[in-house]
């Protein structure tokens, strides 16, 4: 029995620990004594049962008492804290605003990062969606985008794999213009499994079926919800309606409407497909195309449950090997790879966003440091209060608790204001960053609120940490002595943590500033980069529609023309090609003659294209297998193309009027293609061909064009004269320098050539280039904005610490001045202190900046992470900032009245 009593007492004693420290100090022993007596009596009167019952009742009451007591203390602390804040409104406002900025920025970026990077894509079991890629390890491999398959290659993968429950191919098809001002539908082709892969069911009608791929009758079209509401007025009877209402369009019938929110394959609003059409035999193999010769299909699949990416890739490797053996000409160097579709969508956005997140996290830290410093300065001023409280019996814990309550209150207020800022910030981010995927999904919801609460907790603990540790270490007697003015006022106890914090702050701000400096520098390089062509004062537009001339059946067909060419060795065109060539020549002549046009040309491709494809080339006298297949972008261009774009000629000649039908087939190659095909030899006079087409002889070598912009890699390019391969449909115009407007009358000239033709939107290359640079431009602006904000916060921090230091040392400064110290000396003393912070913080910051830049190297363009110019500029900015921050306090110090100080003494 006795043992039981003892264990109950022990249990009760541990329960008492729930009570606040002060309460335990006051009544702990008494409660224990009373409980023991009560328990003894219960044991005597009612035995074990009564004693147990008493123990239970007391335990419950103790817990209840603990809750009430803690709540009571909290209320006291909050009331006390609020009173202190009201007494020092300046401190409170600065602290709340600083924390609001930090919390707001970090929450805003989290909102974006969460929506873009962390959340699953809006498809059922989205983590099982994979993107299949053709990996070409050899020369001329693809970079970026969703690397395309040829359709037979896709069919082989579809039929041979067992790791995917469904797999589908899709590719952009084109645009269909609707009547009047209704707009343009963007169409894409999809194999029948696409919606099965994505797990999407139409809300009206049906999806595409294998039967649709036979190509009988008008093509069935599945439209998106957006297209349904925008173009068809959300007509509930839209099923069965024709897709387009103009007779020129290919006939298609709407068979299904997709659910709202369906987005595929693009998530950044740049390529939103409105209608999905089946892959008919004509789409699979357009006239003149070589099977497995054209790679333009993107492939997505759904992993079988329980199958991981690694297993899938092992099987894909095996399939790739089989295909390489079966089709050595086309598939020899191809590997197959499955990657997560989520990764494919958000992969490029991840690193800039995480970088932003790091930047705002630094900002939050700087804000915390600022508040910590304010608290430290204030806690120094409140030493007397704390000392008196301690002398009156408030334990250290009580003081710590008070501090934590105060920082929590500040963090909470800052957090609430910060949420408002986060809302505005996230909206601004979405508005100004048009090409990040999934941005429209960003909103402040429970997840974001929970994150923001976490930030508030972190902030309150982080801001209170140093003052609390310092407070709790300080002895009561020392504090009272200091508070009464008998302690030393030299930089020391308060200064040490404050110094460290200010240096940390400068280092963090400088790291950000350095990163921003590198990005601005890198952006300047992007703008000034040599693209291999002159993008200034050039406009482009698509020539749309088809010639209205009657389709005659006379003349050569394409196969007959080809056969003729093989016999004669001279270019022979089909009737249709001949008409197109004449029409294109006429078009260029007319447009070039317009006033306000310096030169004009037509090409199948222009710089900054919507999409790009490559074809395998064959070289005369070299076996395909030896060549290891080179892929090149091909274009048909009119003779003025190189002059209009100012693409420099390296060797040989440009196209001219000789290069037409009835003459030998010629080509111009880019430097990279020349190097890949004829390493160490001259390309001039060599024979080159695409697929099974006849060989053309190289007459010229031109400079490489970075068609996608400065970050592009030189791509092998093969140019044909349009007169020998008439396909060009994109107009390129060079306008006289300094002319702002686009020439009038172009549209009239185009219609004048053929009433069936019209001109698409005229776009200026400079604008297209800017659109390509929107990502870097945005990243640069955001990081610059963050770094300036960080610098401003650091400036406030340095200013605060110096001002406080001067205030505390008034006495010392007065005596120094009384002893003959000049104003200049006092000023130097304060500015010297500022300079020391700057020096240490600056060195740490630049080192941090270089380390950060090394990690984020991929985001820099032609700028080294330790770029000396950036180091110099950033150091200058820091020097100016610190002098700015120090000037006020230094000036204040020189105004100390030595007489007043001596009198006080």
């Amino acid at each position: 029995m006795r043992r039981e009593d003892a264990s109950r007492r022990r249990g009760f004693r541990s329960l008492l620990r729930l009570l606040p420290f002060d309460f335990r100090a006051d009544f702990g022993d008494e409660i224990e004594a009373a409980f023991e007596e009560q328990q003894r009596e219960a044991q005597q009167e009612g035995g074990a049962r009564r004693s147990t019952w008493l123990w239970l009742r007391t335990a419950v009451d103790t817990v209840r008492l603990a809750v009430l007591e803690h709540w009571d203390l909290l209320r006291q602390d909050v009331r006390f804290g609020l009173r202190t804040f009201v007494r020092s409104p300046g401190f409170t406002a600065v602290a709340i605003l600083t924390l609001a900025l930090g919390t707001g920025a970090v929450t805003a970026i989290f909102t974006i990062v969460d929506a873009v990077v962390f959340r699953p894509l809006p498809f059922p079991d989205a983590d099982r969606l994979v993107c299949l890629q053709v990996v070409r390890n050899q020369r001329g491999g693809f970079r970026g985008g969703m690397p395309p398959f040829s359709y037979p290659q896709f069919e082989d993968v579809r039929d041979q794999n067992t790791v995917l429950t469904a797999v589908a191919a899709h590719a952009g098809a084109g645009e269909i213009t609707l009547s009047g001002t209704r707009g343009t539908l963007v169409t894409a082709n999809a194999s029948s499994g696409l919606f099965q892969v994505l797990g999407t069911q139409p809300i009206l009608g049906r999806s595409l079926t294998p039967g649709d791929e036979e190509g009988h009758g008008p093509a069935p079209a599945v439209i998106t919800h957006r297209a349904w509401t925008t173009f068809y007025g959300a007509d509930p009877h839209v099923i069965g309606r024709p897709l387009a209402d103009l007779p020129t369009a290919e006939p298609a019938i709407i068979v299904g409407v997709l659910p709202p929110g369906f987005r595929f394959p693009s998530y950044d609003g740049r390529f939103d497909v409105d209608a999905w059409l089946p892959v008919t035999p004509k789409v699979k193999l357009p006239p003149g195309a070589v099977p497995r010769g054209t790679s333009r299909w993107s492939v997505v699949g759904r992993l079988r449950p329980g199958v991981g990416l690694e297993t899938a890739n092992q099987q894909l490797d095996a399939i790739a090997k089989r295909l390489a053996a079966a089709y050595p000409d086309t598939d020899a160097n191809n590997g197959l790879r499955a990657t997560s579709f989520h990764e494919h969508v958000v992969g490029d956005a991840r690193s800039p966003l995480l970088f932003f997140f790091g930047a705002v996290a630094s900002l939050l830290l700087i804000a915390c440091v600022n508040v910590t410093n304010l608290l430290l300065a204030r806690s120094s001023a409140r030493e007397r209060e704390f000392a008196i409280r301690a002398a009156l019996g408030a334990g250290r814990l009580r003081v710590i608790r008070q501090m934590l309550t105060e920082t929590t209150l500040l963090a909470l207020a800052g957090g609430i204001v910060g949420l408002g800022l986060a809302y505005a910030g996230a909206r601004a981010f979405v508005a100004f960053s048009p090409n990040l995927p999934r941005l429209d999904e960003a909103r402040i919801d429970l997840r974001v609120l929970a994150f923001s609460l976490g930030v508030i907790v972190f902030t309150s603990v982080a801001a209170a940490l140093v003052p609390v540790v310092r407070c709790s270490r300080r002895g009561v007697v020392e504090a009272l002595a200091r508070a009464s003015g008998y302690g030393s006022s030299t930089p020391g106890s308060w200064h040490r943590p404050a110094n460290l914090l200010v240096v940390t702050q400068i280092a963090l701000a400088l790291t950000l500033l350095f990163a921003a400096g590198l990005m601005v520098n890198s952006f300047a390089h992007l703008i000034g980069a040599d693209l291999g062509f002159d993008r200034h004062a050039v406009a482009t537009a698509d020539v749309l529609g088809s010639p209205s001339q009657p389709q005659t059946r006379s003349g050569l067909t394409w196969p007959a023309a080809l056969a003729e060419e093989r016999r004669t060795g001279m270019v022979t065109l089909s009737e249709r090609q001949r008409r197109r060539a004449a029409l294109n020549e006429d078009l260029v002549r007319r447009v070039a003659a317009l006033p306000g046009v310096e030169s004009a040309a037509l090409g199948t491709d222009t710089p900054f294209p919507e999409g790009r494809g490559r074809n395998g080339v064959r070289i005369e006298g070299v076996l395909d297998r030896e060549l290891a297949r080179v892929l090149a972008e091909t274009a048909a261009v009119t003779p003025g193309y190189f002059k209009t774009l100012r693409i420099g000629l390296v060797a040989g000649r440009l196209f001219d009027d000789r290069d037409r039908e009835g003459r030998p087939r010629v080509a111009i190659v880019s430097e990279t293609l020349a190097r890949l095909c004829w390493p160490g030899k001259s390309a001039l006079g060599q024979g080159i061909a695409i697929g099974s087409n006849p060989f053309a002889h190289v007459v010229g070598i031109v400079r490489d064009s970075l068609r996608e912009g400065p970050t592009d890699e030189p791509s092998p390019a093969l140019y044909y004269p349009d007169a020998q391969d008439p396909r060009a449909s994109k107009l390129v115009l060079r306008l006289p320098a300094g002319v702002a407007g686009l020439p009038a009358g172009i549209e009239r000239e185009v219609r004048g050539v053929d009433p069936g033709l019209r001109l698409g939107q005229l776009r200026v290359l400079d604008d297209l280039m800017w659109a390509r640079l929107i990502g870097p431009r945005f990243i640069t602006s955001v990081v610059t904005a963050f770094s300036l904000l960080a610098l401003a916060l650091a400036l406030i921090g340095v200013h605060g610490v110096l001002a406080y230091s001067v205030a505390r040392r008034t006495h010392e400064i007065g005596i120094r001045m009384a002893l003959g110290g000049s104003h200049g000396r006092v000023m130097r003393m304060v500015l010297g202190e500022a300079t020391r912070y700057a020096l240490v913080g600056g060195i740490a910051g630049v080192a941090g900046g270089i380390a950060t830049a090394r990690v984020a190297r991929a985001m820099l363009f032609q700028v080294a992470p330790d770029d000396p110019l950036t180091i110099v500029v950033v150091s200058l900015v820091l020097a100016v900032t610190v002098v700015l921050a120090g000037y006020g306090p230094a000036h204040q110090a020189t105004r100390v009245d030595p007489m007043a100080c001596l009198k006080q003494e």
Partner: protein
Amino acid sequence: MKRDEDRPATMSPAMFHVMVALADEDRHGYAIMKEVAARTDGSVQLTASTLYGIVKRLLADGLIAETTARAAQAGDDPRRRYYRLTPLGRRLAQAEANRIAQVLKLARAALSQG
């Protein structure tokens, strides 16, 4: 720490019992608990935790005070402290007793009419 603003507008029954238990004699905690149980025929049984929650409150409000006059009796637990009712406490307990009596009177009158 006097907290006038926290003084209860109405006193809880347990608080009232504790004050009444100290009306005739200074007592330590365990004695208060026993006195309360005896006065209420065992219907109010305070636990040590509840009692000291109340004691802290009454001390803070100045309604009871720790007495130093009373010498510890032989064999007394040294952890014990004795409390007495302050004049303010007595007046407040008196007022509370009157209020209860008034409530009782009104209730009895109302009930006897039915």
